[in-house]
């Protein structure tokens, strides 16, 4: 026998998680639009409920279409398993609620998606979970913020909207030295651009609404377990190491080894919180993921052209994109993101808020909306939309100036995008 040949990334984006349907031979993943599943007998039912046999009980917990998507993202990330959720926010919440309860603490990058910031800053404290926000570029700040009740270190692979590159190897070392897992939101990079588990992360979540889907027609999230964190050596996670009375005293680390976290997230979190993904949504996301490598390659190529154009334009005050040599994380990005730094970036128009508004109002091809990662190019003004709940101090801390404009570059002809940008910039300059 020669050395095993493993399947490549592009092959896995098309095939991982799916075997042609045994009954019909369907090549595409069928949409199993069903709430529940018929048992063969009372003992068969009991066996599935008691985790003796495999199978589906109820689509809030598992569904065959969702299972294909879950396996596919786990394969692409190099994890042990995943759970498809109703949104990226639901995936983030599921992870946090699985790992901790009241009187717990999170250390998080302060450069986060506005929705995540809301969850950590305003909502979770009502349930006894506090967060200390730190500068994502200051690894010592992560270390200094860790407390006895800390249960998680958290950041985004690329900060939103400042594109701070999270130094995953360094921060994961800090987390692990304190018996803590590192969770990253990898939405902006997808597994095509960044493999956080290889860099040291333990848990990944995605808003699958974005680049993974690419079409902007569904809302969905994915939570992925790397199976790497040693929950038992840490003394901080009795939820995984001690008997769980909510499931006949199941001990997750003892019974499921590397899959302890994702198994508890499903058996408790999917069951009780119920933020599940529709199987039709899973189907749509799967269609998008089949072209992920092709799309990400063009997203990055287009973005590089647009960044170059803006960087040379007299109406543009600054451009922030880690590919640029003057970006503070340029060297780190070259190391962690060799295939590119994604397709979301921000820039400032000379003239501040009013110039920025004129720019957005004049563009025609760019869609003004609150999303990123679509095949179509998008534009937004974060200070008045996605991050509007943050006060001035928080905005400044997150690196969001009043005139900052965020672009998500799509797959159009780059010349057409440049023409549209030029139209907007001319309007911004005219005043």
């Amino acid at each position, binding site marked *: 026998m020669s050395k095993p040949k493993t399947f490549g990334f592009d092959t896995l984006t098309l095939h991982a998680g799916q*075997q042609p349907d045994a009954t019909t031979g369907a090549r595409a993943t069928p949409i199993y639009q069903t709430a529940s599943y018929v048992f063969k007998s009372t003992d068969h039912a009991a066996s599935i409920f008691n*985790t003796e046999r495999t199978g589906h009980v109820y689509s809030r917990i598992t569904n065959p279409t969702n299972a294909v998507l879950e396996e596919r993202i786990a394969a692409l990330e190099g994890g042990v398993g995943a759970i498809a959720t109703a949104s990226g926010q639901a995936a983030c919440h599921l992870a946090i609620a699985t790992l901790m309860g009241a009187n717990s603490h999170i250390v998080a990058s302060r450069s986060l998606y506005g929705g995540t910031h809301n969850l950590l800053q305003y909502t979770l404290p009502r349930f006894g979970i506090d967060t200390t926000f730190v500068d994502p570029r200051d690894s010592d700040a992560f270390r200094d913020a860790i407390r006895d009740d800390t249960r998680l270190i958290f950041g985004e692979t690329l900060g939103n909207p400042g594109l701070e590159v999270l130094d995953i190897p360094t921060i994961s070392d800090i987390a692990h030295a304190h018996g803590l897992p590192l969770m990253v939101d990898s939405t902006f990079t997808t597994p095509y651009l960044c493999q956080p588990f290889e860099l040291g992360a333990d848990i990944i979540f995605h808003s699958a609404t974005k680049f993974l889907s690419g079409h902007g027609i569904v809302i969905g999230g994915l939570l992925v377990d790397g199976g790497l964190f040693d929950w038992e050596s840490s003394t901080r996670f009795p939820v995984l190491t001690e008997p769980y009375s909510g499931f006949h005293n199941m001990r997750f680390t003892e019974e499921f080894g590397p899959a302890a976290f994702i198994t508890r997230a499903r058996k408790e979190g999917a069951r009780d919180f119920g933020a599940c993904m529709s199987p039709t949504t899973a189907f749509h996301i799967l269609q998008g993921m089949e072209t992920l490598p092709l799309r990400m390659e063009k997203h990055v190529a287009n973005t590089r052209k647009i960044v170059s154009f803006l960087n040379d334009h007299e109406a543009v005050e600054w451009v922030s994109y880690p590919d640029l040599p003057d970006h503070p994380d340029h060297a780190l990005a070259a190391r962690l993101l060799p295939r590119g730094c994604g397709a979301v970036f921000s820039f400032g128009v000379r003239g501040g808020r009013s110039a920025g508004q004129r720019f957005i109002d004049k563009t025609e091809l760019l869609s003004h909306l609150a999303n990123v990662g679509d095949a179509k190019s998008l534009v937004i003004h974060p200070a008045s939309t996605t991050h509007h709940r943050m006060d001035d101090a928080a905005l400044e801390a997150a690196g969001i100036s009043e005139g900052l404009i965020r672009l998500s570059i799509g797959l159009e002809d780059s010349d057409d995008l440049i023409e549209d940008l030029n139209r907007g910039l001319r309007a911004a300059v005219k005043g």
Partner: protein
Amino acid sequence: MRLTVDGQSVFVYTGNSEHIHNQSAVVFIHGAGLDHTVWVLPSRYFSRHGFNVIAPDLPGHGRSSGVGLNKIETMADWIIALLDASGVEQASIVGHSMGSLVALATAGRYPDRCRSLCLLGSSIPMSVTDELMNSARNNEHAAIDMLTYWGYSTQAQLGGNENPGLWMVGGTLRLWERARPGVIHSGLQACHTYEAGMDHARAVRCRTQLILGERDIMTPVRYGRELAAKIEGSQTTIVKGSAHSLMTERPDEVLDALITIV
């Protein structure tokens, strides 16, 4: 639960149930470098159906202390010591891969202690390639890659897990990555140097079943059948489409087959 065997602390998974006096016992023996978690589903089934489940982490593996044993016969002796420590006179012995050889040696050398025997992914010989052995000796990740990918059928390497949402290849890689240095090598060495298999097969006196994967390239069906031919009255179940990692690729078919023999 924890037991002391040969002076070492041993972890025994029981299917998350307390043992009940006078219930029949079933022992599940894992393969080289692995641990009891490969038996979680059948362990939970049999513990709910009136059996005392004994799924140990072999010495040096998982949660058990000690060092990995490098002879199949030594491991069979250890299984008997484990039965003694458990207060069990006779049990069904189930083993997978290296564990199947341990089960065979136990049944062949201690026929009075075995009520029935089930060998999964088994063959005599169970030789190991030089490439794999050398990688394991050097604790290289390449050994884990070989064991993992050779252990799954091509289709299973792409997924389609019957256990929803879990990536089979990823889970297996992570499990082997937890093995302590030298443990995989000692297990592979035990498999490679086991020469008394056919003699032990002829000495088996209990009901026996072999469960073999149709696409197993590590313990091919052809060699499994030759082993079965040496065990009087044995039955063989071929699991279509599956390779060596039977309990992961076809957990329900494996359980159905186990129910007929345990």
